[in-house]
């Protein structure tokens, strides 16, 4: 995409590459240090693949002490470090830097303890999200947050991004489902926040780390809460003749006191795309499709379905189908889960956005996106976690066309500004990373950003850990938006700025 501003490259580090590689090889098995061009290539990007960058070297430590030694070494030698989980992040949070070590946690792939009595699992951060559920499901338990990448994404990455998923309205995001973390700070200090009990006393440092996008520490162990699988789970597939009627029904379901396990919305463009792609049997005549999932005991679910049916009929739904078996329920989800590849099949590239808005503003947001789509002459398909207001417009474009690239980026940025204008935020679950860095000023003013930077500075005073991510580079925010920085001269040179 457009030229990306990254922290100033420290040439002295580049010049010392062979010495650094040699020293790192003393801190872990030398097989774990990668420095040849072909070895580094797989680490050049994460799931925001429009940006690539070759790191100085990749280190794949095997235990917490090694992470600590590596970070301590980098701290003493002023070497930047970019932590990486499974590399499935969509906002470029794990994009390497030319003069930085990429610290991959892929070898931390073991579940350390399954503790049914305390309803938790202690795991290394490289274990996949779904891997945790797989380890406990034979006893009827599961781990609740379910980002769509759960097959591949790691739990450590989930902590860094505070990942959500389809079920986060009822069950919360990562921060609500972890009990403790072990973390290594940039200077090598190993610390532990929380454990197997609830609500650690004092500052909620685990809450601060969760969602900090790898800027404050490297997580080396996570204790997650596990829940009992509900007795009954059923889904309803409901078509509406207009965006407004479907949006209103979704709002009314929530305001009537129902908390669905999941509630998803897809617009007409996506209904067609996914139905072509996965033959999910979606109502193709509908302008908007609502998938509502309800869980609990049998009578609880029956009662909720009765209420949801009544609300949807009142809002003129054009079709309503209930799942009568687990197979059918999964088939309802098949199309929704194929949303991204379906868009991939329709255009050479797609760009997935991630804003949150108040639920009641759904119709307004979708109509605004439609207008923008016409303005930029780029097709867009929308899916939406309607339960919690998290919107994922997928803009389709051709990456080889420079002008289309530019327009896509501008289109995406306008969508996120619309989210803020409607009372929402610029990222619901994908994180800021490098992608939405410059949009932070749409939400926060100078004071807000400076407070966050002060925290960063207090825990990583040399700004070595994942620098250049989340916070705008050389740009300050003012109440009305962005402030022009003339000739790179800053008004407050004493303030921390990363």
């Amino acid at each position, binding site marked *: 995409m457009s030229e990306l501003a990254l922290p100033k490259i420290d040439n002295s580090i580049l010049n010392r590459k062979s010495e650094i590689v040699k020293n790192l090889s003393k801190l872990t098995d030398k097989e774990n240090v990668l420095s040849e061009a072909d070895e580094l290539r797989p680490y050049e990007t994460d799931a925001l693949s429009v940006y690539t960058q070759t790191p100085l070297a990749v280190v794949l430590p095997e235990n917490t002490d090694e992470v600590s030694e590596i970070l301590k070494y980098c701290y003493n030698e002023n070497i930047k470090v970019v932590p990486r989980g499974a590399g499935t992040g969509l906002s470029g949070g794990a994009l390497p830097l030319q003069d930085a070590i990429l610290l991959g946690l892929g070898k931390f792939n073991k579940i350390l303890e399954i503790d049914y009595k305390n309803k938790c699992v202690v795991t290394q951060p490289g274990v996949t999200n779904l891997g945790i559920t797989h380890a406990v499901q034979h006893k009827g338990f599961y781990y609740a947050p379910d980002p769509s990448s759960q097959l591949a994404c790691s739990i450590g990455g989930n902590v860094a991004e505070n990942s959500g998923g389809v079920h*986060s309205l009822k069950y919360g995001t990562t921060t609500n489902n972890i009990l403790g973390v072990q973390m290594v700070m940039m200077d090598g200090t190993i610390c532990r926040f929380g454990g197997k*009990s609830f609500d650690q006393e*004092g500052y909620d440092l685990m809450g601060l780390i969760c969602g900090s996008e790898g800027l404050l520490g490297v997580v080396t162990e996570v204790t997650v809460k596990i829940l009992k699988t509900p007795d009954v789970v059923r889904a309803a597939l409901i078509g509406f003749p207009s965006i407004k009627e479907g949006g209103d029904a979704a709002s009314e379901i929530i305001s009537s006191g129902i908390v669905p396990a999941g509630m998803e919305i897809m617009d007409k463009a996506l209904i067609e795309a996914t139905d072509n792609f996965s033959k999910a049997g979606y109502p193709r005549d509908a302008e908007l499709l609502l998938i509502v999932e309800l869980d609990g005991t049998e009578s609880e679910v029956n009662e909720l379905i009765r209420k949801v049916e009544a609300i949807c009929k009142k809002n003129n739904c054009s079709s309503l189908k209930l799942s009568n078996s687990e197979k059918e329920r999964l088939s309802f989800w098949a199309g929704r889960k194929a949303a991204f590849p379906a868009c991939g099949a329709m255009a050479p590239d797609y760009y997935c956005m991630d804003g949150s808005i108040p639920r009641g503003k759904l119709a307004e947001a979708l109509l605004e996106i439609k207008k923008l789509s016409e303005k930029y002459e780029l097709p867009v398909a929308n899916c939406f976690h309607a339960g919690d207001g998290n919107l994922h417009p997928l803009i389709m474009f051709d990456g080889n066309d420079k002008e289309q690239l530019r327009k896509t980026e501008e289109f995406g940025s306008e969508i996120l500004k619309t989210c803020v204008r409607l009372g929402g935020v610029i990222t619901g679950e994908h994180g800021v990373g490098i992608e939405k860095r410059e949009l932070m000023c749409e939400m926060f003013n100078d004071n807000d950003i400076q407070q966050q930077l002060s925290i960063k*500075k207090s825990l990583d005073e040399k700004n070595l850990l994942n620098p250049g991510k989340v916070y705008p580079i050389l740009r300050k925010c003012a109440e009305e938006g962005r402030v022009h920085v003339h000739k790179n001269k800053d008004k407050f040179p004493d303030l921390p700025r990363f």
Partner: protein
Amino acid sequence: MSTKIKINSQIFQDSNNVYYPKDEVEVSDLIRELYKQDTPTEIIGNNSKSFIGNKTQSANTTSLSKISGIIDYRPEELYIKVKACTPINEIEKVLSENSQELAFEPIDFGYIKDGKSNKGTIAGYLSCNYAGSRRFKVGSVRDHVLGFKGVNGKGDIIKSGGTVVKNVTGYDLSKLIAGSFGTLVALTEITLKVLPKKDSSKTVIIYPNNYEQIYDLFNKLSSSSSEISGAVFIPEQSNNKEFSAKRNNVFKFNDLKSKVSFVAFRVEGDKISIEEKINNLKKELELNNSDISTLDVYQSEPFWKKINNLEVFEKTEHNLIRMVIPPANGSKLSKYLENNHNYFIDWCGSLFWIEVNSKKEEKIKDLKKMANDFGGYLTVIKTSSEYDYGESIFTVDKVRLMISEKVKQSFDPKRILNPGKMYRGV
């Protein structure tokens, strides 16, 4: 300890020299002035929980009690935005009119303080982060805060979060503020997630024979897919006649046996699913031939109020301890407590409220060691008048203290806000 200084502002001050800023701008002006003059201040709301924590090392007091009122309540969006010192009662009243509630079930600390209800303000509550009985199911106060505004120790007005549930924009400072005892920001505005109130509730009482059975029940209850929303154990401590009499007086219900230990669990929802869940649980807990009783909704609701008001420790003059441990270690702790202290267990085996005789402060050290060994922590919520602070009232290890100091520094570099309230130097 600094002395009182003249603040050049128009902010209202009462005869005890307490400042009462009326909005966030006045809070900002006041703190900026205090910052310039290196003068710390205690931050209070309406004083319902100010007895919790250490005495602050400051001569000034700032009351945020005038910053009160509901700003924006959107039942259909499941949030309420309020000024920081809005009384919890006021929030609960307006939510109740829309069949909604603060799901974390605020504890009413007024009863242990002076024997009458005083839930205090939402800012005070958030600053303590002590959730009630429903915690193990719905999360704590920190899990229900969507965003806040406040003034840091330099006088800057800052905000974090918003009104939407899904939000990963920047650091999640709402979590950090929860449980920070006013040492990071003076709160001015708070947005909370609210949830629909359940139609009804019932409470099942079981009279167990021994500690193994209690924890077996807790384990089965938390492993069931028939979700419960509260589970407590109330021991009968016949060796302490005074406490025993009080306990039996507090838990006087038609359908509850007196003078025996009991486990109580609550099921909430619509009436049909309550019956279904109770029947499932009776099977899973193998209760069909056991001695049990059931409290209907008219008994169930006041029963849980009494639990969350800590009424068995009403007006206690002893030290009151709140200990949280992983539930699997609970039976060992209960056995120890049986002959030593008055107590009860909440959160399905995880939260212990323990009363330690005023003359036995050294016992707190033993309990703290146990809390650490069991993988938990304790806080001395109320100290007796004889408490000499030889044993700190919070639990913190060296590394966390070091990080806490750094975090404090980043919000409040001159330690203007509630210095020493939690730890020395923070």
